[in-house]
């Protein structure tokens, strides 16, 4: 009897020990995140001003703003959205609504997963070989946007697929019973229900596009270009590349540090806004569904 009491005591003690260790490790993970955000905020907020985000870079990028880099990143986001959103959403719809559970579906989802696992620098190489050289776009917004679009394609497909998968079949059957065609069912019934989940995924994929550096290194990014692009075949500066350049290979690394902190902060704020937007929308739609 005594030994079993001891065993139980040990059991309890072990559990408390292990669980608190796990809690500490989990807190450490969150602490790292907060440390990174906090650190960049503290160092960067002094640089951040209206002028910083609306002025051209000056004096070897040690002074002035990052306006062209912001515009460049927005161009790239826009370009990749135009290319990747329709393609990805269509693909997701086809896989979930039209294919049965056969080899084709398995093959396509395997390819999508593989594409998602390819390192971003490989996309950069590919974009350079195909868009910049073979198709002759040169270093341009269109080459960079297409490369980034390809990079986010698997994310968009997966998001759409998951969103559609979660819709109960009764919606589809109900619509068919009323005489609607498959296309009508998808357009009028399925997509509106899946919309909240799809849009959240799309927003998060925009976050990924805005932060990627490796794919744009050789397809679009300009080191220093204090003017705005005039067409899709122009080079642009981009925020992540700008941060990379001024923190490692700029002409004067110490003097451009404040600009680097500022750029990092702008990037982080962008990502924060995107994440908040995605989570906010998720909550908003969840509540709306509940109310209905």
């Amino acid at each position, binding site marked *: 009897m005594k030994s079993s009491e001891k065993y139980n005591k040990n059991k309890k003690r072990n559990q408390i020990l292990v669980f608190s*260790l796990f809690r500490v490790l989990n807190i450490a993970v969150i602490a790292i995140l907060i440390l990174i955000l906090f650190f960049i905020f503290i160092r960067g907020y002094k640089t951040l001003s209206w002028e910083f985000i609306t002025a051209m870079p000056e004096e070897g990028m040690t002074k002035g703003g990052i306006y062209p880099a912001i515009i460049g990143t927005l161009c790239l986001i826009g370009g990749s959205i135009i290319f990747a959103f329709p393609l990805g959403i269509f693909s997701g719809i086809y896989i979930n609504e039209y294919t049965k559970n056969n080899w084709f579906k398995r093959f396509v989802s395997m390819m999508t997963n593989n594409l998602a696992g*390819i390192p971003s620098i490989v996309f950069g190489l590919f974009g350079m070989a195909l868009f910049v050289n073979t198709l002759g776009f040169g270093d341009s917004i269109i080459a960079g946007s297409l490369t980034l679009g390809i990079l986010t394609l698997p994310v968009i497909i997966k998001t759409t697929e998951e969103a559609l998968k979660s819709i109960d079949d009764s919606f589809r059957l109900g619509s068919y019973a009323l005489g609607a065609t498959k*296309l009508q069912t998808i357009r009028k019934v399925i997509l509106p229900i899946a919309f909240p989940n799809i849009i959240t995924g799309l927003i998060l994929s925009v976050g990924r596009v805005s932060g990627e*550096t490796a794919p744009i290194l050789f397809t679009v990014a300009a080191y220093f270009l204090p003017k705005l692009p005039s067409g899709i075949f122009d080079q642009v500066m981009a925020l992540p590349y700008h941060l990379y350049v001024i923190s490692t290979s700029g002409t004067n690394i110490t003097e451009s540090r404040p600009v680097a902190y500022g750029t*990092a902060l702008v990037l982080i704020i962008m990502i924060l806004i995107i994440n908040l937007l995605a989570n906010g929308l998720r909550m908003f739609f969840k509540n709306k569904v509940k109310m209905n």
Partner: protein
Amino acid sequence: MKKFFRNTSGKVAESILFLSSTSTSLIIILIVIFLFKEGISLFNEKPVEEGNILVVNKSNPVNELKSSTVKDIFDQNITNWESVTHKKDSIILVRIDDVFNYYTEEEIGSNFENLSTCISDLVAKTPGIIAFIPEKFFNKQSQGKIIKVRKVSIRDFFSGKEWMPTAHPAAQLGILPLLLGTLLVSLGAIIIALPFGLASAIYLAEITDESKRRVIKPLIELLAGIPSVVYGFFGLVVIVPFIQNLFNLSVGETALSGSIVLAIMALPTIITISEDALRTTPRSLKEASLSLGASKWQTIYRVVIPYAKSGITAGIILGIGRAIGETMAVLMVTGNAAVIPHTFLEPVRTIPATIAAELGEAPQGGLHFKALFALGCILFIITLLINLSVQMSANRKTLKK
């Protein structure tokens, strides 16, 4: 009529959707074509800069040299022909600039019009010579013999210990240091990330309640959303100086710094996938264990973790895959020295970082350019294998069920 229209529009829509769904497969095929076209053509190239040749005296029995031997000769690590051929004779190195030490400016001519004759003369009268000269200054009737440099072979590519793609006269394309560097940094990252990642996954899936989870999950998502270049920057200004001071190093850009940054970046992958796997454990299994008197921890340890083992492994493997392919952060914090690493406190260079750092300077279509594409191919193959293996095991599991 209306019915016909409905039918055709349905058909058209279906074919558009079908075409879209093949896009990812098409893109992968295109990636393979474009990457491997450049990458494989590397193995048809001679590692000597185009337009230049290596010339020896006709009496010299040597016909072909390995690129690494050429480098040893020109670095004066080999100073006698004895170790290359059987003929004993000390090696005399001549680069194009050295010709001016042997002949006066008048002999060569003010516009170098006699340069090729001078070179022929020099080669003819020096038996131990090896000259690295532009092809246009080589006189075919002279006493010289062009030696071939062996083409880049797959074996040399993988086992070569030196990566000097722009070295003169012969480029050294051994990727062993890059491969080892990549593995070292990635494995280090996983070792660091594993305790944090698994503990967090178990904590989120089994220990904490839903309300805390709802706060923590978006934070993990945010951790995944921070751009790699920001992690690299953070590593550069915080982790690198920290490592430098901690170990009293002359440079803080080391494999360890890279591993720490990569560990932070791999955490979301490991946590999310492992947590999902842990959550698939059927409630009945857990309840059975608890009803037998097992504590919550015993249940987790003996029931939940074994059940989710394959999913957790998938998370870890995908985390490694992410770490191997990560470019910018590693490029910024590891110091990028292309030498075989021996400890975690040395600068290393990974495959993706090499591509990112060097592609901008490599002339298009040249040897260096192709070598970088070959590196891209290797990266592609490694990550493809990782992904396929994870998917295969996942498929097998679903089929079993």
